[in-house]
Every structure is written in C-alpha cells, then in structure tokens.
C-alpha cells in the first residue's frame, strides 16, 4: 500500500506540511517494499491546488493520505478514489508514518 504525506522539503525527517494542496512535495512510502520517494508539486501556487494534489495522489495509486488539513473539493476527489485520509500529528513525516503503520492515527 502506498502512503502519502505532504512535506515542504525532500527529507523524511522534515516536518509535515501544514497544508495539502499547497505543499511543495509529497512523500510516497510503499509499505510493501519499505521504499519511499518524493513527488514535486508543479501547482503549489496555482489555482485548484487541492484538487490537483488529490488527482496526483489518485494517479500515483496512493491508498492512504496523512495530512493536517484538506479542502472540501479535494476530499471529495480523494473519497471518489477510495483514498483514506488521516490527521497528521506534530512531528516529522517519519513520525507520522510510524504512527500510521501502528494504526494510532485518527481519520481526518
């Protein structure tokens, strides 16, 4: 399963982004291979950033998204794509991933 987390730097120990659509990068973690990579946003400053970010998640076969907040339109698209959305806790992307895998995050 692929888990996505919006971040502002290409570093798993960086703090998670406070937004979803306007994030500079998305960390994608594959729970089967334990590999991760980063997707760079091309639309962080543009219009409908949330929807475009949601589409990016769908097109990259994300199964779980962990985010601090998420707009209504983006949420609608994520739900249509059967992506489960969880609330971030304060800390790094790595912290959030660990909590997610341990099942201790709550739904957004």
């Amino acid at each position, binding site marked *: 399963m692929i888990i996505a987390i919006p971040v502002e730097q290409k570093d798993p120990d960086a703090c998670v982004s406070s937004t979803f659509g306007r994030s500079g990068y998305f960390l994608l973690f594959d729970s089967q291979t334990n590999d991760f990579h980063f997707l760079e946003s091309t639309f962080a400053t543009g219009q*409908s950033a949330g929807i475009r970010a*949601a*589409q990016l998640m*769908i097109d990259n076969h994300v199964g779980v998204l962990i985010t601090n907040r998420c707009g209504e339109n983006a949420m*609608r*698209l994520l739900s*249509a794509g*059967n992506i489960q959305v969880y609330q971030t806790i304060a800390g790094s992307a790595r912290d959030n991933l660990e909590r997610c895998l341990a099942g201790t995050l709550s739904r957004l």
Partner: protein
Amino acid sequence: MKIAVLSGKGGTGKTFVSVNLAYIQDHAAYVDCDVEVPNGHLFLPMDRASFEPVDVMIPSVQTDRCNGCRACVDFCAFHALGYAGGQVIVFDNLCHNCGGCRLLCPQKAIIEHPYNIGSIRTGNFEHVHVVSGSLNPGQMQGSAIIRRMIAQTRPFPNQILDCSPGNSCHVVQGILEADMCILVTEPTVFGANDMRICIELLKLYNKPFGIVINKSLDTRNYIKTFCREQHIKVLAEIPLQPELAVLNANGQLAAKQPEYRRIFQKMLKNAHSLVAPQNL
C-alpha cells in the same frame, strides 16, 4: 446616457451616488452590478419585484459512454474536473461554463445541465426601474448574472450601472456598457491611491470619466490637486456631514431633500457635459 459608477476603494459611496443619480432622473434604470454584495435595493425597494434565477450550464458525464480517456480533465483550464474511481468528477462551483469539455469529448459522453449561481430581481421604485443581481454565497463569480442584467436593460437609454469596487472582470463589464464612468473616491491616502489604479483601468477603455469626491472635509485636498494636474474633471464634491452619513446608514435617499438633490443634479449635468458633442 449610460453611466457606470466605480471606485477603487470600497466604501467610498458608489451606491450612495448611484441610487441618488438614478432617482433624480425622470425614468432611469438602476442596475446593481455589485452582485456579490448588492445594496441598491435597500435604497430603492421594489414593489412587486419579479424574480429570475440565473443558471449556467455545467457538464455531466454519461458514464456508459465515457471510456476514461481523460481528455476533458486535461483540457479544463480551471481544473474543475477530476478522474477517480473510474469516473469523471465535476466540481460545479469551479466550472466556468465554457462548454469546452462537451465539445472535446471524443465519445460525446458529456451533456450539460443548468446550475443555479444566483438571481435577478426586477421591479420599480417610484419612477426608477430597478434591476438587482445577486450571486449565491459560495459561488466564485457572477459574470453571467451581470451579462444578463446588462442585456435585459440595454433598451433603457438612461442607466446607472452600480459596479463593485476594485478592477476585476465584474467591473469591466460595467465599463464596457457605459457611455461614461463616474469614479467615486474619498480624500484619504487610501482613496487617492486606489483612485489612481482605477484611472489606469478607465484609460485602457478610453471611456470618458469624471471624479466625484465624497466625504470631503475641506476645499483643499490632494485629490483636487491631482485632478487639476491630470486634467481630470471633478464632477462634484460631497461634504462629510453626519446628517448624510445617518441618512445613508438607514437606507434613505438623500436626493429626496432639496439641498442634496441639487448636488446630484449638478453632478449629472457635469457628467453629460463630458460626452455632449462640442459645438465648434
């Protein structure tokens, strides 16, 4: 004559000037183009107003014909379409109703249906024909409402188009329709700054325009100096008076009182002189 009333800064008195200018004429149309926050109807309450919903055409995708090619999603300049769970998702309030996706779809899978974005109320207040547009809260923009109001009132020779503040596309529609524009400002640093920005917009359209200085405190102010230097006509100067402020706050027409009526009559006469043909 069709007059568009604008300002750069909000709250300078566009509606105040607009409703009174409409009122002093024998039979003018007052068109409230500030569809996000219309106020003219508070000063010119219509009796027996007719109500017309304004709908725009929004796409919907027939799933049995859609093959998931996503050409529509990629085309949409406003990112109002997404693709998830094997179907196209339409974001109604982001759609600009351009019809492009329907034209583009190779499977002819897209049809359109009406989507309500607001309404127009039309009626009369005494001798004034009132047209008031309203955008539903939550909707992004009301250009379609303004377009329809302008088209409906086109036959009226005398109109006051009360525009929204700023220099957005909503304001542009009013400017395009008008024979001349009145720019309402206030003699503050903010008012002067915003007036200059609005003047840039008016110059782009080459429309005759004049300034009304509202809430004026004294006879000398930098707006008058600026207008003199730039050869811009000041059509009227309305003093800052508590009585006027209270009348306005309570939705009362100042022009019902003779001393204020005279101010608006002179303003209108000066506005006419900007577009009247000059005899050589």
